[in-house]
C-alpha cells in the first residue's frame, strides 16, 4: 500500500519533515523527568537508616532527615537495653518491686508491648530481657563463646516473666513478677520507624520510605509510581521476591542471619523462643506486611518463634493478613494475601499457601 502526500500542502521532499519530527521526538524524551527522589543515609538506632523522600525540595527533605535523626537518637538512648538509659532505670526499679512513673510516650510504648504480647500468645515476649542477656545479646559484639548452660536457662524459665504481669495505671508502672526485665528490641525499631513517618507527615511530606537497617515503612508513591521493594533472600545473595507498596505499608523481616554467634561449629541466633529459652528453631526468616511498623516488627518476631506449624494461627491472632515464612529447608510458606502481593525473583521455590 502506498500513500502520496498531496503536493499542494507539503513540499516535494516530505522526508525532511520526518527528520525534523524525529529529532524533536528525541529531545522530548530527554525532557521527560525521571522521578526525583531525595535519598539520605543516617547512622541511627545502631544501624544505617536510609530515607527516601519524593516530591519536596531538597532543603525541606534535608530538614526532615535531620528531624528524624534527632528523634531516632532520642529513642535509641531512651530505650537502650544495656547501656544506661531510661529503660535500664525502669528495669532496675521494677526488679526492686517499686512503681515507676512514665511519661506519655513511655506509657504508649509499654502499653503497645503488653497488647502485642497478649495477641501473640506470649510468643512475642519483651519481658524476657534476662534471658536475652543470659545469651549474651546485651552487648555490641558478642564473642563466639559458650552458650549458657541448661541449668541457667531452666532457672530463668521457671520465673515465667510475662508482659501480662505488668500493671500500668495512671502513668505508674509496676510488676507483679520481679523477674520481668523489659527488652523492647523486638519492636523498638518498628516504633522508631513509625515515629519517623509521623515526623515526615507533620512536615507535610506524604511520599517517603524510612528503611531502618532493612525494615521499612513506605508512604505515598513517587509521582504516581509505587515504591518498589526487594525482599532479600535469607540464604543467598540477592533478592528472593519483590513488591510494590500501596499507600502506607510497613515491610518487616526477622531473620536468623541478623545477629548470631558461632560456637564449636553450631550457630546460635538472637531470636530467643520464650518457651524453650533457646534460639527458635526451623525458620530462616519471616516477612510481614502491615500498616504500622510497630506491629509488623513484633509480628515478624512472633511468627518466627511460632515456627512453620503455628505461624498461621499466630498471624490471625495478631491481625496480620500478609505474612511469608521461609523454613530452614528453604520452603516458602505464605498467606493468600501475601501471594497476591509479591513477585518471586528466583526460579520456582517450593511454596505452601496457607489461606
Amino acid at each position: 500500500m502506498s500513500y502520496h502526500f498531496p503536493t499542494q500542502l507539503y513540499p516535494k521532499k516530505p522526508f525532511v519533515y520526518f527528520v525534523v519530527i524525529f529529532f524533536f521526538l528525541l529531545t522530548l524524551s530527554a525532557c521527560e523527568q525521571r522521578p526525583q527522589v531525595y535519598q539520605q543515609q543516617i547512622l541511627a538506632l545502631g544501624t544505617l537508616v536510609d530515607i527516601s523522600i519524593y516530591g519536596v525540595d531538597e532543603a525541606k527533605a534535608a530538614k526532615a532527615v535531620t528531624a528524624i535523626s534527632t528523634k531516632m537518637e532520642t529513642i535509641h538512648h531512651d530505650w537502650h537495653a544495656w547501656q544506661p538509659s531510661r529503660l535500664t532505670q525502669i528495669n532496675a526499679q521494677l526488679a526492686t518491686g517499686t512503681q515507676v512513673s512514665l511519661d506519655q510516650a513511655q506509657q504508649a510504648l509499654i502499653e503497645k508491648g503488653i497488647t502485642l504480647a497478649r495477641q501473640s500468645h506470649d510468643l512475642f515476649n519483651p519481658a524476657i530481657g534476662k534471658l536475652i542477656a543470659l545469651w549474651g545479646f546485651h552487648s555490641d559484639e558478642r564473642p563466639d563463646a559458650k552458650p549458657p548452660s541448661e541449668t541457667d536457662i531452666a532457672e530463668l524459665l521457671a520465673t515465667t516473666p510475662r508482659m501480662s504481669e505488668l500493671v500500668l495505671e495512671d502513668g505508674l508502672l509496676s510488676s507483679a513478677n520481679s523477674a520481668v526485665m523489659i527488652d523492647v528490641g523486638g519492636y523498638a525499631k518498628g516504633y522508631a520507624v513509625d515515629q519517623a513517618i509521623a515526623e515526615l507527615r507533620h512536615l507535610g511530606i506524604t511520599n517517603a520510605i524510612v528503611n531502618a537497617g532493612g525494615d521499612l515503612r513506605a508512604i505515598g508513591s513517587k509521582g504516581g509510581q509505587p515504591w518498589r521493594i526487594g525482599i532479600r533472600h535469607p540464604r543467598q545473595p540477592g533478592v528472593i521476591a519483590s513488591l510494590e507498596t500501596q499507600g502506607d505499608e510497613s515491610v518487616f523481616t526477622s531473620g536468623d542471619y541478623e545477629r548470631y554467634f558461632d560456637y564449636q561449629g553450631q550457630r546460635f541466633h538472637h531470636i530467643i523462643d520464650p518457651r524453650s529459652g533457646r534460639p527458635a528453631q526451623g525458620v530462616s526468616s519471616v516477612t510481614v506486611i502491615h500498616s504500622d511498623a510497630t506491629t509488623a516488627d513484633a509480628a515478624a518476631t512472633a511468627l518466627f518463634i511460632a515456627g512453620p506449624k503455628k505461624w498461621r494461627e499466630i498471624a490471625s491472632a495478631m491481625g496480620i493478613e500478609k505474612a511469608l515464612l521461609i523454613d530452614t529447608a528453604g520452603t516458602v510458606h505464605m498467606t493468600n494475601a501475601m501471594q497476591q502481593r509479591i513477585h518471586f525473583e528466583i526460579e520456582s521455590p517450593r511454596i505452601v499457601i496457607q489461606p
Partner: protein
Amino acid sequence: MTRADKVVIALALLLLPFLYIEFWGNGSRGEVVQIRSANSKDISLPLEQNRQLEVEGALGTSIIEIKNRQVRFIDSPCRGKQCVLTGWLDKDGQLAACLPNGVTVQIIGRDRRFDAVNF
C-alpha cells in the same frame, strides 16, 4: 513502496538502538562508589578508576580500595572489622559499613531496580 515509506522504515530502524539504550541499557556505565562519613563530606568516585583512599571518620582513618570495578574496606579503626570482613562489593546497591567509625561505602548504579531492600 514509495520513497516516504522507505524513509519511515529507515527512521524506525534508526530509532531502535536509541530506544534499546534508553529502556534496556544496563546501568553499568554510570556506576559510582559513594563514600559517606560522619566527619567529612560525601565522596563519589567512579567504580572504573582504580585507586586507594583514606577517609576520616569518628575514630580515625578508614582505608578504602577501588579495583577492577570492585570496592572494599582494607582497614578501619574499629574492633569487629565487620566492614573489612564484608569483602569486595561489585553490585549495584551493595553496601559496606564501619558503624563505629561512621563510614559507609555503597555502589550506586544508574538504574536501581528497587527503591528499598528489606532484610
